[in-house]
């Protein structure tokens, strides 16, 4: 039985909405993450998918404690992040790192690669000044960059190379868990494949746990062991990649899977797509009952009343009232 390394317990992140200038009045809440329970095991890749606005990025930021947690716990190897002091957090961040979507924005344009990669090691005092040069060199080799580029600035690199620098920075402290927020969606197809291979190789080699956030299901299926599908701040389906994407149960997952265009003209022309009407509803006023019912092709009257819980069903967990009938 593999060890659970990161555990989210009933995690909620709500952003208050204020109106009025001087006397700010709270008029509502954006429920970006609304009750997420999740366990991440050691050296596993967990894919997190959903449409924009479903809360997947906020979930990652909450785990990193970059935004304030409203309720619930984030536990990393038994240490509760939501109740940690800043000193403890500094310690914990060593084990928890993040890769961002846009490698053009996430690197400091005024820092050389050396400065970018050396900074975390110096802050956390993981090695002496003397060793730093060779450590940065090693790190660059791990992600497939030649150490001779150490003194170059980010603008001298292409998008794919920049994403490699961002990955190297996340790995500098030998973390246990890495959160990657859409790390390949800003890249071209041929470069995307290089980065995906690199991430898969690093997970295997370093025993990392990776939470891989993406909206592209084919990418997620390729890299993930398990997949969690999010809708309006909640997980609606969770299971192995083969189960969830290969044989989806939740109507939302089914619609997502059917919307992926495949590079196969014959299939593509005969295929019946499940068209979801409209856009996801606002997380300020989520619909009653099942949050998906207004767009769901198989919703009944009950779906508007009862809130479905995430329950085990057909080798996965799924939150749909009609899961057995569909």
């Amino acid at each position, binding site marked *: 039985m593999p060890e659970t390394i990161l555990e989210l317990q009933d995690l909620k992140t709500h952003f208050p909405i204020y109106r009025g200038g001087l006397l700010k009045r709270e008029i509502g809440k954006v429920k970006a993450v609304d009750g997420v329970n999740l366990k991440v095991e050691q050296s596993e890749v967990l894919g997190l998918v959903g449409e924009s606005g479903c809360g997947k990025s906020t979930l990652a930021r909450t785990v990193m404690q970059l935004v304030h947690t409203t309720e619930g716990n984030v536990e990393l190897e038994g240490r509760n992040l939501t109740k940690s002091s800043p000193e403890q957090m500094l310690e914990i961040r060593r084990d928890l790192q993040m890769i961002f979507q846009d490698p053009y924005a996430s690197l400091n344009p005024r820092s050389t690669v050396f400065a970018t990669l050396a900074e975390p090691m110096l802050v956390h005092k993981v090695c002496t000044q003397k060793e730093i040069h060779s450590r940065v060199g090693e790190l660059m080799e791990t992600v497939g960059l030649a150490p001779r580029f150490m003194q170059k600035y980010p603008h001298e690199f292409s998008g794919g190379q920049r994403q490699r620098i961002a990955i190297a920075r996340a790995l500098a402290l030998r973390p246990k868990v890495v959160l990657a927020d859409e790390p390949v969606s800003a890249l071209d197809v*041929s470069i995307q494949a290089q980065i995906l291979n690199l991430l898969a190789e690093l997970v295997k080699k370093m025993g990392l746990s990776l939470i891989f956030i993406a909206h592209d299901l084919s990418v997620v299926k390729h890299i993930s062991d398990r997949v969690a599908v999010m809708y309006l701040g909640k997980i609606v389906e969770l299971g192995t990649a083969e189960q969830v994407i290969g044989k989806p149960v939740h109507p939302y997952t089914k619609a997502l899977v059917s919307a992926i*265009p*495949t590079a196969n003209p014959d299939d593509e022309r005969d295929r019946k797509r499940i068209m979801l009407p409209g*856009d996801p509803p606002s997380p300020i006023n989520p619909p009653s009952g099942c949050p998906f019912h207004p767009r769901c092709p198989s919703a009944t009257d009950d779906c508007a009343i009862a809130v479905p819980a995430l329950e085990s069903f057909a080798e996965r967990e799924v939150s749909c009232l009609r899961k057995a009938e569909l």
Partner: protein
Amino acid sequence: MSLLSVQDLRTYFHTRNGIYRAVDGVSFDLDAGKTLGIVGESGSGKSVTCYSLMGLIPSPPGRIESGKALFDGVDLLNCTPQQARSIRGKRISMIFQDPMTSLNPYMRISDQLIEPLMIHEDITKADALKRALEMLDAVGINDAANRIHYYPHEFSGGMRQRVMIAMALITKPELLIADEPTTALDVTVQAQILELIQKMQKEIGMGVIFITHDLGVVSGLCDRVQVMYGGRIVETADTRSLFYTPKHPYTRALQKSIPSMQPKGTELYTIEGLPPDVSKPLAGCSFAPRCEFANDGCTSDRKPELQDINETHRQSCLRVQSGEL
């Protein structure tokens, strides 16, 4: 007769760092009512090709060095501004990638929608508004009568793209150029938009040029596909031939590097290296430095040209042409 015929289009950008040959000898035809997909990575020249046709190349630094683009007998690249104005926005229209930035945030949707009609047609404002309403209904915006008076920020991304499509199609163009119209959208919304473009195409009977980097989007939508690399077309074929019997090594490599539905654990095929720097003239084939099949012949002075494999399929790999691959 084809609706649009582009011949030997070359668009260069003259910058301080040298001449960027963004589009370097591109020729293609599009028949009325058909859909052509242009696929390539960023920097391959797919957008610049279409911007050249629409006269949207900033000049300087850009310059159309040579070429013809015949649209109904008029050369779009060498016509009077009056001629261009009577075609652009009326008979050819365009949808852009990012619906967040391509609508004017200061103008109501209604005013933006009727603008092409007011310019190109002899029509009263009331009639134009009626047409705009019908168009919004047709692209699937509920409660159009009310929402036509909204500002762009009051719509979501998918809705804005629908407004863009309504605006592009309101003059019933003969040709629609769509530059990555779904790249900024979610898969579910992407499916809606693709369906909408197909539906409108059937209704109006227009030709469509669909620019994308996503081979998956192309496969269901296009009649023909052309693959661009380094400012040139490397392969062009009907969709089925391109997907089932790709010939050019770049097309094959692109296909192999898509992770779609491959089982986990298998390593993805990668194309080593980076797209070419189009500011430096490269001897021979521009894909040769990254190509696993390249030999000395590929980097010699001979520029690869498109050659017919059969009636519908042309490609430019020298080694395929000589029968070695």
